[in-house]
């Protein structure tokens, strides 16, 4: 797959919005048709540029949610930041047929390649699910048998992104998924609401003894907390890759 090596200057691609899908009350997936897209790896990001009528432009970085495809279609999922400059436009105003510009792919570290065969532990906090979803989708697209587990921390049952697709990937593709609810859990859920702790890490994630590669993505405080738990439980820091959002928040 191209995109691992960046050769020459990344150019801006004028793309067309081809589909929109609400993930939650505040998050939306945007499907784009990108002419001449060089391809990407799961976990990589793009710069997205929107331009006002007077030429004023704003650029933000977003993780790619979709697996690499050869037809130039690519999906981003964006959380609305209440005071944001760009995300309210993307999640509320943008319509099918509208144009935005993309530049990328960006980042060569927080990536999963489909020739990785070792166990993979994914840990997402909120919108941190996006690059990890790209990895899960890439694994399915490549028919990889790499053992994947996902710990997904959300506020409540209504804040799960990609819910039905994750259920299908769990049953059809054997991705082990554990949801952690921090504010409100579903009825009869065995664990009271709360953040990920050492017990959750011990019970629901790959043990350090199988030498998983770990990808942790979410707000800074979440990533600091989880990475600390994982190193305390014996995971080698070199095997833990992190991507942090905020505290200025979720890539406004």
């Amino acid at each position, binding site marked *: 797959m191209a995109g691992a090596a960046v050769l020459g200057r*990344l150019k801006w691609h004028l793309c067309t919005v081809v589909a929109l899908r609400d993930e939650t009350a505040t998050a939306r997936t945007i499907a784009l048709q990108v002419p001449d897209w060089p391809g990407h790896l799961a976990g990589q990001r793009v710069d997205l540029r929107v331009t006002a009528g007077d030429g004023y432009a*704003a650029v933000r*970085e977003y993780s790619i949610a979709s697996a690499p495809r050869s037809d130039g279609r690519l999906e981003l999922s964006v959380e609305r930041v209440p005071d944001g400059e760009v995300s309210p436009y993307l999640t509320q105003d943008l319509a099918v047929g509208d144009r935005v510009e993309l530049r990328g792919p960006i980042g*060569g570290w927080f990536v999963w390649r489909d020739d990785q065969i070792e166990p993979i532990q994914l840990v997402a906090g909120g919108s941190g699910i996006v690059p990890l979803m790209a990895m899960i989708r890439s694994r399915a697209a490549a028919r990889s048998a790499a053992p994947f587990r996902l710990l997904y921390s959300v506020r409540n049952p209504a804040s799960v992104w990609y819910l039905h697709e994750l259920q299908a990937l769990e049953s059809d593709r054997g991705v082990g998924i554990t949801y952690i609810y921090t504010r409100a859990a579903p009825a009869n859920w065995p664990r009271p609401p709360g953040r990920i702790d050492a017990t959750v890490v011990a019970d629901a994630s790959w043990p350090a003894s199988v030498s998983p590669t770990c990808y942790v993505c979410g707000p800074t405080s979440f990533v600091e907390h989880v990475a600390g738990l994982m190193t305390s439980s014996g995971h080698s820091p070199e095997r833990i890759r992190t991507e942090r959002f905020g505290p200025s928040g979720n890539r406004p």
Partner: protein
Amino acid sequence: MAQSRGFVGRRGAATVTLPPGQYLTEEFPVLSAGPTPHVPLEEWALTIDDGKNALRQWNWKSFRELPTEAITTDIHCVTRWSKLGTTWEGVSLDTLLADITSDASFALVRSYGGYTTNLPVADLRNKKAWIAFRFDGVDLAAEHGGPARLLVPHLYLWKSAKWVRGITLLDHDEAGFWERNGYHNYGDPWREQRYSGD
């Protein structure tokens, strides 16, 4: 540029000039590739070497006996946030490099946790770079690079290596961590050198 129908945007305050493509934040976001290392002060050391031999080394006590400077500077992260007027305390690289005679043109900065970044030695000299250990009046938090980090505010902030443990002076340029992972070799925010090829 192509217009995006219906996008209005906000114009920044006219009195502030930021590098191209940056926006202002009052916060201090964190960008790190892995877990935050926690380095006990009694184990901390800073070494300047030439790739073969140590040229100078300080432990925390001897490092903190060096003269320090108060620094007020703007900082710019490649992920597009900028923060103005940040205040730091640190030891100037001019002080650390003062007794070292070297023809080296390049530096590879090394961190606890394995992170590296490269820059020309010229960018470390002449009141442009510090090893900082206080931010905003308090000891530098581990997530922001404490106990001590490099501060080279005229370059994108990934060059200001957190958890610094050493600087290797080299006669050739050697790419660091992000520089091998798609980011620009030099990283001047005013020339918007974000990614390799920019």
